[in-house]
């Protein structure tokens, strides 16, 4: 399923997208499949599956630790695609770092995404200025290369992203823009920046739904971001903490989903 179809479907129902991140292979490939099914049943609209990298620069301690556990448990790029192929029902997005894609081969990676039902790709250490070749491989294989935008991004760089998007008009209405709520790295935060509505408005000018992530951990934060105009909310570290502590996932996900309605 394409991401744009999901946003259209939610739009009709008057809901925003709940996007959840889990680290594939933490604690094992089989558990990832089980956890994914559980959170999809509980209301996850789009599933981000992290392909763990040894040096996850954009991630805080929670996802770093999850990545290390997954790699130690034997996760690798081939097993990642095998695992993802067993999960269905919602659009799937791969989040990983450039070296893993580069070593696998850009074409081959994009094709493997498509073959395992992944229709979006987020690469936090790939700046838009360098994303041309991967963007091309993604486009040829029906995968949206999703841009991350920071709240302090200069107009000049915003224009670079805009140009990348408009290089192919048909892509303008697909995928989403990942807006970082704060400068820095991933990880649950108690306090979040109060005012994002202006930035969300600015980013929406790119012509895509705006999903906000980094630091979101509670239903009231989700509600607040929805009120500020976010089209989607991304939760990762807070969920992984619960997975690691073997806490109840379904009720947590349901409470987050309720806040998007």
């Amino acid at each position, binding site marked *: 399923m394409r991401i744009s179809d999901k946003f259209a479907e939610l739009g009709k129902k008057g809901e925003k997208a709940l996007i959840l991140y889990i680290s594939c292979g933490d604690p094992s490939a089989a558990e990832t499949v089980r956890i994914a099914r559980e959170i999809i049943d509980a209301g996850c609209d789009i599933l981000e599956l992290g392909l763990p*990298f*040894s*040096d996850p*620069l*954009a991630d*805080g*301690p929670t996802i*770093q630790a999850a990545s*290390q556990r997954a*790699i130690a448990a034997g996760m*690798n*790029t*081939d097993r990642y695609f095998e695992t993802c192929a067993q999960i269905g029902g919602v659009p799937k997005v791969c989040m990983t770092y*450039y*070296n*893993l894609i*580069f*070593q*696998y081969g850009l074409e081959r990676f994009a094709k493997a995404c498509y073959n395992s039902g992944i229709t979006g790709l987020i690469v936090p*250490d790939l*700046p838009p*200025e360098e994303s041309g070749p991967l963007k091309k491989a993604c486009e040829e294989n029906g995968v949206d290369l999703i841009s991350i935008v*920071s709240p*302090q*991004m*200069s107009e000049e*760089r915003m224009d670079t992203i805009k140009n990348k998007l408009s290089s192919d008009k048909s892509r303008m209405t697909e995928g989403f823009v990942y807006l970082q709520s*704060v*400068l*820095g*790295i991933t990880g649950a935060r108690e306090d979040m920046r109060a005012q994002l509505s202006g930035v969300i408005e600015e980013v929406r000018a790119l012509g895509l739904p705006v999903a906000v992530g980094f630091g979101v951990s509670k239903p009231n934060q989700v509600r607040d971001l929805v009120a500020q105009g976010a089209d989607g909310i991304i939760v990762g570290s807070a969920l992984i903490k619960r997975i690691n502590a073997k806490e109840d996932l379904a009720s947590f996900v349901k409470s987050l989903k309720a806040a998007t309605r």
Partner: protein
Amino acid sequence: MGAVHELTDAYEKYKDDPKFKRELDYLLTQYAGRPTALTYCENLSREYGPKIYLKREDLAHTGAHKINNALGQALLAKYMGKTRLIAETGAGQHGVATATAGAKLGLKTEVYMGTIDMKRQELNVFRMRLMGTNVIPVESGSKTLKDAINETMRDWVASFPNTHYLLGSVLGPHPYPMMVRDFQSVIGKELKEQMMKREGRLPSAIVACVGGGSNAIGAWYEFMGDKDVELIGVEAGGRGIKGGEHAARFADEKMGRKGVLQGTYSYVLQDGYGQIATTHSISAGLDYSAVGPEHSMLRDFKRAKYTYAKDDEALEAVKILCEKEGILPALESAHAVAHALKIAKDYDKDDIIVINLSGRGDKDINTIIESLGDKTK
């Protein structure tokens, strides 16, 4: 990315600014003790054949070449209006240099350091703290230089509005490899002038150790166009070229492949999928899985040659340099000494080999005693 764009603009703006250059020159000469000496090694030359010289970066303030770059970037940070410096460190030499520059220029300084490195370079941890720097232990990953860089980058993406990341080697995203090279190129400029004055000709070879590669690039850059001068880089061979046992990116054909790490496209030790490999070296400063991108270029264009020296060879070189010339080299620099002595027999009596002695070995005393122990009695 916003942060590196801002830095690139600032560097372009100030690098040729007369006031900036004057201030940096003042710091290098009146504070850091430049130019450093070029020392002729009579005893080694007599024993090994060719004329052997040492470029004495160990005599620079704080005991290594790292101060050249630290003062340059700290001054730039001041010009940019930053109030805080952050840095990574492996051997601690760059951390000490940053702590020093921060103290001198009045900038709050914090240094990330892997906990394994904190243990083996304890002296430098104390030195940093004495200068008012907060040393932040890094427990993630392999707990060495690579992970310290990760943590510093994670700090910087959130703190760049008031903070400068003072990266210590020719690594990371642009403009770092270029900027650090420029600040270190003072080594080669002095070396060329000193050599012409002493010998009236250029050396046959310049040998330097290569971790990230800043001392090597600094010593070589002025000689890039002098095709007759051999440039030889020495990586850390650790316990030998087997997975995880070394940090010789160019020597390991299986694991040392081109890849992207920490914003740089270069040779990286990694597994088949691209997960970054762990490394080992007795010297913390060479214990890193990637190498500066300019070294990759020099290697592929065959302008420089790269080889490695193993832990025990470096230790033996420490001993030889102490006994024959009365100089205690850093374990990093000892890799260059070891290789230079190994290849000396291939050169004529009139040939000149320069070893860039990038740092002094006081910081390594504990490691050296543990390893050489009884042999010194």
